C-alpha cells in the first residue's frame, strides 16, 4: 500500500485471457476526487483484484464493487465464497464484501414497478373513487345506526369523553369564532355602505349585514372554522389512536370503537354547532353596528332596523343548516381518522383529507340548501 504514489482514485478493467481483473488504486474517499474508470466494465464478475496501489478507502469502494457485481446478474445465491472470487482484496475490504453479499438480494422485495399505462391509471383512480364513495356511505349508515343505538340507550361510551369534546368544540372555540364573525360583519358593512351610501340608503346596511349573517355567513364561516379546528383534531386524534393500536385494544375489550369514539364527537358537534352559529350571527351584527356607528347610524336605530329585517324564518335557516354541517364535520374527521394508515405520515394525510372533504361538503351542501330554499321561496 503506497499511498503517496497514486492518491487519485481509479478503477482499471483488464482482461487476462478469459478472466477479468479489476485493478484499484488511489484513495477512495467520500470527500476526495471522484474515481475514474478505465476500460469497459465487462459483463462478468472479476476473478481477481489487484490492489497494490490502493490507498485509503471508505464505503465508496465497496459500494462501487457491489454495484458492479449486482449489475452483472445476481451471482450470489447465498454462497458468496464458493462462486464468487474476492481474491486479491485486502482482508478488511474482503470482510465487508462478504457481509454485503451474505444475504442475496430479495428480488421480489423490490417494489419499484414500471409505471402503468394511462388507461390503467384511469381504472385505478376510478376504483379508488368508487371505494371512497362506498366507505362514506358505509360510515354514514354506521353513524345512523349508532345514533339509533344512542337513542334507545344501548350505545356504550364514557359521558366524560362526550363532555370533553363539548368543551373542546364549544367553549374553547369561542375566541376564534368571535374574531372571525366580528370581522366578517365589519367587512360586509364596509362593502355594503360604499354602495348604499351612493344613493343615500346607508341605513339599509343593517338589513344587509343582518340577513347575510344569519342566512349564510354566520353558519358557513363557523362551519369552516370548525372543520379546520375540530374536524382536523378528530382526524389526527383517531388516526394516531389507530396507528398506536389503541382502536384494536378497544375492540378486543369488547367495545365498539364506533360507539366509543365517533358517537360522542358526532353528538357534541351536532349540539354545539347551532349554539356557535347563533353566537356568530350576533357577533357579526355587532361588527356591522360598529361600522354603522362610524358612518353616522346610531346603534339603537341600527339594532331596530336589524330586528325588522330579520324574520324568525330567516334566522332559523342558518341554525337549521348548522346541524347538518356539524354532522358533516364530525363524520369526515372521524372517517378519515378511523381509516388512516399506520404511520405518522398517514395521520397527516388523513387530517388534510378530513379538512378538504368537510369544507368541500359544506359548500356543496350549502348550495343545495340555497337551491331548495329558493324553490320553496323561503
Amino acid at each position, binding site marked *: 500500500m503506497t499511498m503517496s504514489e497514486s492518491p487519485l482514485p481509479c478503477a482499471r478493467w483488464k482482461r487476462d485471457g478469459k478472466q477479468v481483473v479489476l485493478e484499484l488504486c488511489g484513495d477512495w474517499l467520500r470527500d476526495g476526487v471522484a474515481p475514474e474508470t478505465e476500460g469497459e466494465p465487462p459483463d462478468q464478475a472479476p476473478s481477481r483484484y489487484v490492489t497494490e496501489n490502493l490507498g485509503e478507502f471508505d464505503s465508496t469502494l465497496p459500494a462501487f464493487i457491489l454495484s458492479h457485481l449486482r449489475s452483472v446478474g445476481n451471482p450470489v445465491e447465498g454462497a458468496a465464497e464458493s462462486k464468487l472470487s474476492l481474491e486479491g482484496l485486502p482482508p478488511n475490504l474482503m470482510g465487508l464484501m462478504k457481509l454485503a453479499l451474505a444475504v442475496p438480494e430479495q428480488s421480489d422485495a423490490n417494489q419499484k414497478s414500471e409505471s402503468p399505462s394511462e388507461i390503467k391509471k384511469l381504472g385505478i383512480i376510478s376504483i379508488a373513487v368508487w371505494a371512497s364513495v362506498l366507505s362514506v356511505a358505509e360510515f354514514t349508515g354506521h353513524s345512523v345506526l349508532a345514533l339509533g343505538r344512542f337513542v334507545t340507550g344501548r350505545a356504550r361510551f364514557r359521558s366524560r369523553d362526550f363532555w370533553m369534546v363539548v368543551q373542546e368544540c364549544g367553549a374553547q372555540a369561542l375566541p376564534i369564532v368571535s374574531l372571525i364573525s366580528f370581522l366578517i360583519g365589519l367587512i360586509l358593512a364596509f362593502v355594503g355602505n360604499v354602495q348604499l351610501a351612493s344613493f343615500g340608503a346607508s341605513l339599509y346596511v343593517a338589513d344587509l349585514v343582518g340577513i347575510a349573517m344569519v342566512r349564510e355567513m354566520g353558519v358557513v364561516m363557523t362551519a369552516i372554522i370548525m372543520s379546520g379546528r375540530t374536524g382536523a383534531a378528530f382526524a389526527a386524534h383517531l388516526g394516531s389512536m389507530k396507528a398506536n393500536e389503541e382502536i*384494536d385494544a378497544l375492540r*378486543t*375489550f369488547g367495545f365498539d370503537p364506533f360507539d366509543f369514539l365517533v358517537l360522542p364527537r358526532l353528538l357534541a358537534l351536532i349540539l354545539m354547532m347551532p349554539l356557535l352559529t347563533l353566537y356568530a350571527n350576533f357577533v357579526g351584527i355587532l361588527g356591522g353596528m360598529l361600522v354603522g356607528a362610524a358612518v353616522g347610524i346610531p346603534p339603537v336605530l341600527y339594532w331596530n332596523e336589524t330586528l325588522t329585517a330579520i324574520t324568525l324564518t330567516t334566522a332559523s335557516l342558518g341554525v337549521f343548516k348548522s346541524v347538518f354541517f356539524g354532522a358533516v364535520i364530525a363524520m369526515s374527521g372521524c372517517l378519515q381518522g378511523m381509516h388512516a394508515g399506520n404511520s405518522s405520515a398517514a395521520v397527516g394525510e388523513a387530517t388534510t383529507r378530513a379538512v378538504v372533504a368537510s369544507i368541500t361538503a359544506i359548500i356543496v351542501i350549502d348550495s343545495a340548501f340555497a337551491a331548495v330554499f329558493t324553490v320553496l321561496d323561503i
Partner: protein
Amino acid sequence: MPASQETPQAKITVRDLTMAYGSFVVMRDLSFEVADKDIFIIMGGSGCGKSTLLRHLIGLQEPTQGSIFYEGEDFTAAGPEERGKFIRRFGVMYQSGALWSSMTLAENIALPLEENTNLAPKAISDLVSYKLSLVGLSGYEDYYPAQISGGMNKRAGIARAMALDPDILFLDEPGAGLDPLSSCRLDDLILRLRDSLGSTIVIVTHELASIFAVANHSIFLDTATRTQGATGNPNELRDHSENPAVRLFLHRGKVTDPPSQTRS
C-alpha cells in the same frame, strides 16, 4: 396431546390457516394446537407474520383460509354476537402497549372493569392498584401513558390485559425493549400468572432467553418457505428439530450440524 380430527378439544386449535394481505400470502397451511395452561410461543424472524398470526387469533383479521377453534367451538365462523363472548375471555397486550393515551393508567385498567362488571368504584380502584402492583407500577395510577417510559407502558399494557382475569392471555413482544432485569421479572410474572390464575398464555417473541425460560410449546414460522417450520417445546426443538432453520434460530445462528441424537 390428544388430537382428534373431528371435534378439536384443545384450548386453541388452528387448522390449515392461510393468512394474506390481498394477494400477498404471509403464511400458509398453519396447523397447531395449544393445550390448556400452555405457555405457547409464536417465534420466527422479523417480519415473518408473527403479529399477523396473533391478530388472526384474536379476530382482528379474517383468515383467507382455514379456521380457528377455541375449546372446540368455531371462532372463525362465529357471528359478531358469539365473537363478543369469545373475546371477553381474552386479554391482549399490544406491541407498543396501546394504552388509551387520553386516560391515566388507572382509568385504562378501570375501563374494562367498569364496562364489563357491576363492581363498586372502591372495588374497582382496589383491583386497579393490585394489577398495577403485579407489574411493579404501584403509585403510577394517575400518570398518563405519555409520561412514563416505553417499558413501563408495556408493563401497564400487561396489567390492563389482565384486568378481567382472562382465560387466555395474548402478549405481543412483551420483552422487547426491556432491560435484562425487567425482562427476567416479566418471565417470572408470566409463569406465576399461568400457575396462579390457570391462564393459557400465547406470546409472540424472538427473545431466546425468555423463550427457553417460560415456554412449553411453540410454533416456528419460517420466512423462507412461508409456512410453519416446526412445532413443539423449544428446548427440544433447539437440538432435535428436523428443520435446520429452527435449530439455527434457536442457537442464534451458531450451529448448522444435523440434529444431534443424544443430549449433551
